[in-house]
């Protein structure tokens, strides 16, 4: 179980400030949705938390260790990263991709590979090549490849954004469900999905955290409207709230 703490993260690139002294403290378990308008710094935050990009200043603590002091292999094992777009250059098979995921950092047992293949219903697809897979199958293969080492922390830059609603729900549900006994941090573009599935919402704008609260508490927050530059109508339904945006 590993907590993740971001301490005054700043990222500057070519005179643009992408993250501006952002601090965030996340416990060892929980499902966290990161929301915010385009250009808010969500993807940058995720890449910095995953150790893929180094911050200009500030540091990240993974458990009680500075992320920068971890070996590449240890980091690859502790932090699973799901990119928004994944397009492998070589047309690998499903089995080869999951195996590559399993061999990063310390090698994991074959049972773990078999388990993840079963969990994501990929058993029949082992020999299929990436180019022949549908969007929904690709999302499942990507998740299996990242999750095969069962990383304590998962960082996902909503990989389901381009999927149809059924597959999108499947993927978001799987990502949020990991928060029960692991830490799952997901950039979510659909606010209703964020508020329906996640325990905690982190609202990001201009490279900093505007609000960070349990999902029900943030729903009525006027900062939500301010950050997205719209007026939200909060509509009550049988099992929760719907947000309808008005200009």
């Amino acid at each position, binding site marked *: 179980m590993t907590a993740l703490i971001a301490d005054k993260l700043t990222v500057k690139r070519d005179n643009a400030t992408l993250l501006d002294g952002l601090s965030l403290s996340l416990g060892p378990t929980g499902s966290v949705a990161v929301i915010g308008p385009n250009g808010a710094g969500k993807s940058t935050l995720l890449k910095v938390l995953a150790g893929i990009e180094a911050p200009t200043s500030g540091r990240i603590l993974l458990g009680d260790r500075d992320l920068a002091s971890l070996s590449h292999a240890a980091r*690859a094992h502790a932090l699973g990263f799901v990119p928004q777009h994944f397009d492998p250059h070589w047309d690998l098979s499903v089995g080869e991709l999951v195996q590559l995921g399993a061999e990063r950092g310390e090698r994991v047992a074959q049972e773990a590979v078999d388990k993840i293949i079963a969990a994501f219903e990929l058993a029949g697809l082992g020999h299929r090549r990436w180019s022949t897979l549908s969007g929904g199958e690709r999302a499942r293969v990507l998740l299996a490849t990242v999750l095969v080492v069962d990383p304590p922390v998962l960082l996902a830059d909503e990989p389901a954004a381009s999927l149809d609603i059924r597959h999108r729900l499947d993927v978001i549900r799987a990502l949020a469900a990991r928060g029960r006994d692991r830490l799952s941090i997901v950039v979510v573009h659909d606010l209703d999905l964020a508020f329906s599935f996640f325990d905690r919402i982190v609202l990001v704008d201009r490279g900093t955290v505007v609000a960070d609260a349990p999902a029900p508490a943030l729903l009525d927050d006027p900062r939500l409207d301010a950050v997205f530059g719209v007026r939200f109508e909060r509509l009550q339904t049988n099992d929760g709230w719907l947000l309808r945006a008005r200009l």
Partner: protein
Amino acid sequence: MRVWASLALALLLAIIVAACAGHDWASPGDVLRAIAGDPSLGARLLVEWRIPRVLAAALVGALLGLGGTVFQGVFRNPLAEPYLLGSAGGAALGATVALLVPLAVPQSLLLPVLAFAGAWGATILVIGISRVSGAVDAAGMLLAGVAMAAILGALRSFLMLALSDETVSLQIVLSWVLGGVQTPSWPVLGLMAAISAACLGLTLVLARNLDILGLGETMATSFGLNVNRFVMLAVLAGSVVVAAAVAFGGLVAFVGLASPHIARWLVGPLHRPLLPASALVGAIVVTVADAIARSALPPAEIPLGLVTAVAGGPFFILLLARRLRT
């Protein structure tokens, strides 16, 4: 397994046919008798000249196959080829110096050494330039490589103009640039084989990380790969392989580009099987091309690079067409 057996068998067949081919064709029986120690002049010529040349051609092809696979893997570009980062220009410059500048070292030694130094030196310069200019990624290296190739080409042209006169023919430079396997002595052939085996080992060490790099730089980094450092190491290793190929065989066109593609059709894109398969394909192609070069227009010998280019050019066009269609 069947693919590997077929590749090995094809290479064996290619070597036997190539050992028979030449100004004077030998029968497979002659070749076998010569290997068994037949003391006749024809048999001795086969053992001392033709067979070492055939095996050297196979090794040059294997090295080009390995180098091409590494470069296509590093740059994740199906059109990447081993001469991309200035190594061809560097090797040609080194060879021009060896062939045209009178130095007190035997040319048979100087030529491979300077070709190797030129090929590897040019690549190191390219990496240095891209580091200094802060463009350490693949695109930065490719651009630096294009610039380096232009500079080295101009230098070579200048040297050729400045150093040639009635006594020094430019034809030897031209024929070297067009590629051709030298006939090695058996000890030199042994050295070549050892170097080739070392190159196979060196590139196999890169195989897993080449696969991971193919997932894209973001994913590769999240999988724990230090992308910029690995790209540099892989380019350095790949250019050693290419420099060795150039030192033994001159500039042989298209083999390094085509072999990895053919091998990928046979064994798939994972680099651990792809590297040896690509080496085998390269070996087969160059062995056959060298046999054609030696035997098509007797008594003259066609430069090997011309043979591979005539066959490889259409292949390259086919590849481009396939790529443009997808």
